[in-house]
Every structure is written in structure tokens, then in C-alpha cells.
């Protein structure tokens, strides 16, 4: 009986870990999807749609939110599975990886403070988008 309990408990823990890992992957993929939507909304304005400060600020807040939540969503047990594009390099230099999130957060906050119109939007956004590319360059494998 005791043994059965132990086995059941171990299995439950194991399942829990698997669940937590796929949960982390799903959560970070959802964050990235949200970032993509936010970026698209800003690009529309950069390419000529009327300037809308609410849209811009909502997008920047999405980036800031991702930068804060992101680092916790790459636990050791989420290296593979669920079609993740995360590269093993993330766990080889976790500090550098997390520094990329921090920089995205800082640059998005600075943009939030300084963007007032289309001109300042065009001037500030490339820096923020650079952060996306710099992290994807090292830590994301594109699947197709």
C-alpha cells in the first residue's frame, strides 16, 4: 500500500513537472504571440496609418509585460517539447539571455516616455525592435 502510494505520488509529481514545463512553453509562446500583435499595430502606424497614442502605449506595455514575465518562463525542464523554438544556448548563458529581456523592458519603457507622435515613433521603435532580433539571433530557432 505504502509502495503504491509512493509510486502514485512520484508519478503525479512527474506529470506535474511535465505539465509545468509544457505550461511554461505555452505561456511564453502566448507572450510572443501578443508581442507580434503589438508590433504589427505599431508598424501599421509607422507605415502611414493615423497616429494613435493609446494603441502605441498598449503595444509598448505588452513588450514591458513580456520582459518582466519572460525570464521565469524558461525553466530547466522546458528545453524541449511542444514545438519550442527555444535554443539550448539559453540555458548555457542564462544571465545573458535574461539581460536581453531586461534591455527590452528598459528600451520599451524609454519609448513609452518619449513617443508623442509619428516622428518620435519612427525614431524610437527601431531600437526596441532591434532587441527582439538580437535575442532571436542567439536564442530562437525558426521552424517552418
Amino acid at each position, binding site marked *: 500500500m505504502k509502495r503504491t502510494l509512493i509510486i502514485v505520488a512520484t508519478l503525479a509529481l512527474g506529470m506535474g513537472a511535465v505539465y509545468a514545463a509544457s505550461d511554461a512553453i505555452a505561456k511564453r509562446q502566448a507572450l510572443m504571440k501578443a508581442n507580434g500583435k503589438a508590433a*504589427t499595430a505599431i508598424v501599421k502606424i509607422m507605415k502611414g496609418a493615423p497616429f494613435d497614442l493609446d494603441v502605441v502605449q498598449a503595444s509598448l506595455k505588452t513588450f514591458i509585460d513580456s520582459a518582466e514575465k519572460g525570464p521565469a518562463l524558461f525553466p530547466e525542464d522546458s528545453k524541449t517539447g511542444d514545438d519550442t523554438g527555444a535554443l539550448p544556448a539559453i540555458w548555457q548563458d542564462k544571465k545573458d539571455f535574461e539581460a536581453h529581456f531586461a534591455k527590452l523592458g528598459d528600451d520599451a519603457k524609454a519609448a513609452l516616455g518619449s513617443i508623442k507622435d509619428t516622428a518620435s515613433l519612427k525614431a524610437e*521603435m527601431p531600437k526596441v525592435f532591434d532587441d527582439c532580433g538580437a*535575442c532571436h539571433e542567439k536564442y530562437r*530557432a525558426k521552424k517552418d
Partner: protein
Amino acid sequence: MRRWLLLLLLIAVAAAIAAWFVSAPRPLYARADWRAYEDGGDPGRGRIMFLAGGCESCHMTPGQSDPLKLGGGYELKTPFGSFFPPNISPDPQDGIGGWKVVDLANALLVGVSPEPAHLYPALPYTSYSHMKFEDVRDLMSYLRTLPPVKGRAPPHRLSFPFNIRRGLGFWKLLYLKGGVPADDPTKSAAWNRGHYLVEGPGHCAECHSPRDLFGGIVASKRFAGGLTADGKHKVPNITQGGALAKWSQSDIETALSLGLTPDGDSLGGDMAPVVRNLSQLPKDDIAAIAAYIKSLPAIPSAGK
């Protein structure tokens, strides 16, 4: 019987001499004439070539973040072995400070070093050979404005038979076409500029096409997708037979200047440094590249 043997031997010797002759590295410009080609370069225009060509992606000193420190030594892993792109900073001993314009022209247009010896096509001269001489000269003026860096890259580590440089003479017969693309008067000026930038300095086909056993681009699948240099990751089809069929020219411009796809994904991997470079090009050049890419006839995605 002995006579036949002698004849066979003679044929073999003749074939060896012919092979040696055919595979010889031949500079396009004689070094002795360097003075005639030296002057007139413009560093401002050369910077455009530097950015379009992405020289720093392979030549910048690894382990630091200044793309203008071109000390070389980055390990470019390929199925043929590891290449270590050399120091191309203006340092007179370790870099190319002693090079003349003709030396750079020979390297980029026919893949021949000042020795002369064949250079490996890890330096994508199969594309650079489509560059105009004046653009190479401008590029040289720009490179000369950059900081000299000490230190040399280690020698390439390649497997047999790829470690025999002379063999590249035959490789070039198969794959090195060269020549500035002719202007197509039925197309816009932007398209023609884009054609030149994409096929020449931009060398887009080098990653976006599949390669054969000898590392040459499969002509019928040009731009239909390939593999990264290390062979590990897929590089997308950029003809109208791939995802770009749904992209507008403006979408392509956004991808090249901001790194963002139409669904807001940010380009990563080897394309990230390309975007960092291209985002500094004049807007007209980005539009030209996009116009040409959008016009590439549909080819189904390459299998690898």
C-alpha cells in the same frame, strides 16, 4: 607493348600538365598595374557596399560588439570543415593594410589572393563577382577608414579533399560565372538596382538556395530556400513559391529594415545581423531590393 606504355605515360603527363594549367589561380587585375586602379574611391559609397555585403557578419572580431573591428577569427562551421575568416582590418601586418584596390578586386571578383592563390568560396565571391569595379574601389576606401586590429585568424580546418586549394580552380570552372548583370530596360530603375544589390554585394542567394555535393548553388532552385552554413537550420524560400507570395513589396521592406514579418515575428538567426546592416541603407536601396525579391518567379521550396 613498351611503346603503348610510353604513350599512356605521355598522355597522363599531358593531362596532369593541362589540369595544373587549368586550375591555376588567375588574377583579373595585374598587381604591377595597381597604380592605374588605385584612385577615385569614395568611402561614403563604400560604406553602403560594406553594409549590403555584410562583411562584418564573418570578419568582425568575435567576443566583442564593435562591428567595425574586423580582426577575423570567427569560426564558420560548415559540412566541409571550419573556416576562419581572416583579419580584413587595415593593419599592415595582420590585416589587409598592404592591399591595393586591385588586390581587393581580385579577391572579390575572381576569388584570388595577392600570392596568388585561390580563396575559398566561404568568401561568397560567386556573388561578389557580379559587383562593379567602382563599387569594390569604394569599399576599399571605406575599409581603410576603419581601425586597424592586431592578430591573425587561425588557418582553416578542412577535410580532404577540400583542403587542397588548387582544386578550387576546377570548382570555379563549374560555379564561378561573374560579370555585372546587364540592365534590363523593360524594368524600372529600382528593379535593376535591386537586381544588382541582391545578386552582387547582397549575396542573398548564398544562404537562400540549396547547394549540391560540392557546395555549389543548385541553379534551378536559386532562392528557393537552403540551409545555414552549419547545415543545421533551414533558410526560407524567398521566391514567390514560398511564404513571400503573400507578402507585399512593402512587407519585404519592413522585414529588411525593422526585422519584422507581416505577423509581427522578429527575424532571428543569421538574418538578424543582415537586418542590422540593411536597416542602415538608404530607403531607396531597401525598396529596390524588395522590388527585385518580390519579382522572383515562383519555385517550390527546396527539399533541403
